[in-house]
């Protein structure tokens, strides 16, 4: 039974599934990483994803153009980010609760639009799998890495890109400074508000794409609450990743691979109650953190509104 798991089919299956499952987490968590690095905790990711998912789906269905769908998701996610930015930066609202508020809004609004504009579950022809020439023919590896759809590839490209922006650009430097010590950044003429706006809006856009990656690339349907709390896991993965894109990638892969593994455990008929199988990724994510004993501090100004005294 257990030994059934150690076959190449299973391994290839787990890796391929894990890579796909991790895709929406990557977009959302990388976006959230930017927000948190600039000092803003956004708990509304799931709501942004849902609205993004719906916008992408609806536009793709109506105009038969997937990229237009992505654009719609980016715009809708960005608008949600803009609202979040206004509320947390200008109105200095408690970040935690306003995030929950935006989550509820996105959850309800996406469903409402779905009911009014579509009415029933439909499918759309999503992004097809893109077989990378030659590479996709490599035994095993080809299956795992090179037969995914374009949004999956882009998600993984996003990781080094995010690292690069964060660590190698003046913008990244500002983001890191603003999240750590906004007073210092402000005293050097860095606009804390502008940097935070940028980060939160970017986060919203990426959350929108995360939703789109589900509705028009991986699943090709829209259904109410189709993310089922995935956005909250994405926020948790930012903590797992220690606010670094690479760490987020590790966390997303770990979580997703274990999720894929538990599906295989069930399929292989290994005798554990299915509920315990489903529990595995959550338990393991915590355990890994306990054992890794990493001590990365959150950005010092995380959740703290900034106001210049006058």
């Amino acid at each position, binding site marked *: 039974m257990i030994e059934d798991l150690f076959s190449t089919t299973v391994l290839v299956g787990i890796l391929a599934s894990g890579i796909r499952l991790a895709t929406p987490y990557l977009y959302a968590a990388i976006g959230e990483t930017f927000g948190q690095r600039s000092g803003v905790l956004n708990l509304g990711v799931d709501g942004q994803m849902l609205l993004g998912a719906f916008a992408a789906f609806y536009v793709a269905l109506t105009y038969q153009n997937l990229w237009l769908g992505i654009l719609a998701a980016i715009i809708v996610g960005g608008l949600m980010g803009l609202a979040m930015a206004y509320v947390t930066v200008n109105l200095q609202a408690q970040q935690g609760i306003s995030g929950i508020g935006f989550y509820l809004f996105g959850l309800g609004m996406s469903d409402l639009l779905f009911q009014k504009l579509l009415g029933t579950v439909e499918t759309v022809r999503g992004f097809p799998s893109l077989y990378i020439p030659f590479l996709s023919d490599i035994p095993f590896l080809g299956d795992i890495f090179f037969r995914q759809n374009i949004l999956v590839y882009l998600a993984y490209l996003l990781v080094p890109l995010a690292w690069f922006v964060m660590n*190698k*650009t*003046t*913008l*990244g*430097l*500002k983001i*890191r*400074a603003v999240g*750590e*010590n906004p*007073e*210092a*950044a*402000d*005293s*050097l*003429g*860095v606009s804390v508000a502008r940097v935070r706006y940028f980060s939160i809006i970017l986060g919203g856009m990426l959350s929108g794409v995360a939703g789109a990656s589900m509705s028009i690339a991986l699943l090709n349907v829209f259904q109410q609450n189709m993310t089922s709390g995935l956005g909250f896991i994405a926020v948790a993965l930012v903590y797992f990743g220690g606010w670094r894109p690479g760490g987020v990638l590790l966390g997303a892969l770990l979580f997703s691979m274990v999720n894929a593994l538990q599906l295989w455990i069930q399929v292989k008929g290994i005798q554990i109650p299915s509920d315990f199988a489903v529990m595995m990724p959550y338990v393991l994510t915590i355990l890994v953190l306990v054992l890794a004993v990493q001590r990365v*501090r959150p950005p*010092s100004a995380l959740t703290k509104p900034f106001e*210049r*005294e*006058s």
Partner: protein
Amino acid sequence: MAQVEKRVPGTERIQTVEMRGITKRFPGVLANDKVDFDVRAGEVHALLGENGAGKSTLMKILYGMYAPDEGEILINDTHVEIHSPTDAIQYGIGMIHQHFMLVETLTVTENVALGLPSSRGLLTDLDAVSKRIRELAQVYGLQVDPNAYIWQLAVGQRQRVEIIKALYRGADLLILDEPTAVLTPQEVDEFFATIRQMVAEGHAIIFISHKLHEVLAISQRVTVLRDGKRVASRETAGCTKADLARMMVGREIRVMPEKPPAQVGDVMLELRQVQAQSDLGTAGLKGVSLQVYAGEILGLAGVSGNGQRELAQVVCGLRPITSGRVLLKNEDVTGMLPGELTKRMLAYIPEERMKDAMIQQFTVCENIILRDHNKPPYAQRGFLRHNIIGEYTDKLIQYFKVKTPSRDTQARHLSGGNIQKVVLARELSRQPRVLVAAQPTRGLDIGATEYVHNRLIEERQKGTAILLISEDLDEILALSDRIAVIYEGKIMGVVNRQEATAEQLGLLMAGVKEELTPA
């Protein structure tokens, strides 16, 4: 990276800056009252005043952080509007704040580059910045590793980073708000050398300090603020410390207190071959042995970062000991938690009081019982007795002359000097048998300093064993009965006050050991 473009009207460099009739009201406080102030290229103009006199406020106005209610600012005789630090930077004004404005998780280079346009467009040009930092460091004697993270640096080095930041931005006028408060005498000397160099190159400097001898040593002119008003402005040459003190406080100040002879008793605090790690994980204390007797003040002199912080924390149970023993009145207290040491009547005034000894959001009352919150009479069966705590706090407020609207005011609404007094009140009123006082007068004006000194001597007369940790050699010499010098985590020697000279201590602090007669 190129120098920042400046839009100074008329000439390129700042020749004169003039503030005219500046008034700034905070609700309830007139922080600046029609203040006139000016500074010229090639001079150091010192700004003096008691805690809360309005010095920082005036400077923050000049740096664009506050908007003045009245008055105007002129640069090179032209009226200018400064609405933000960005404006100030563009006019060539740099400011080093009382509390450092550095991002601890970034490197020196990144801190300097922050907010500046990059020669590589969207990408950072850290190599170029770090090259230029090394150049500046060379010219002005500001040695610092550009690749080090700020959290790895000692205060003195952080100070240098702040100066480099300002110079890098092409500051012609540098505002220094209490830059020397955290520096050792040696560092002050180096720092002054840097300032003189800058003045020689035509920079204008505004210098704020509570240390009168520094003002006398470095400045060409001095302006004194009292309660927000300018009370005097004159050439420094010809002024004495006493003159300055009188202008500031409006009365005579004994700069150093008189001290009755010591009544030395038993050993109260003893360290035996104590070793401990520093925050960076390196060896902080390398086998320290010390004894402090009842009724004496043992001064611990040394350049900042040589293990003073670790030593104080080890004694107070805030830092684990890797080897060695600590004894309180012959009882082995090694490894005890702070709470247990508190019960054994150990008091501690830490160096970073605002952060380490006060809870800013707590009221004065609540801060007063920080050490004793679960002891009778303040608590009974787990319940706090607010009435008793309140009455006790009122008594302390009165006795220690803490200036606060009420005992229920949050600590963060008190001025720095008064926060200091609350800590002092708490620690001394516990009638400690051993008192560790680290930099007890840092940041205080001379009136408050005098007050703290008198209290410490009073405590000594009561038979308390006092370990006084200070980087201010004058303070050490004035108060101590014996003086120990710490260097790189080791005690270089202990001398009696009568036998000690500043020169000899200075050598020891620099790690040069001569034969000494042990005290």
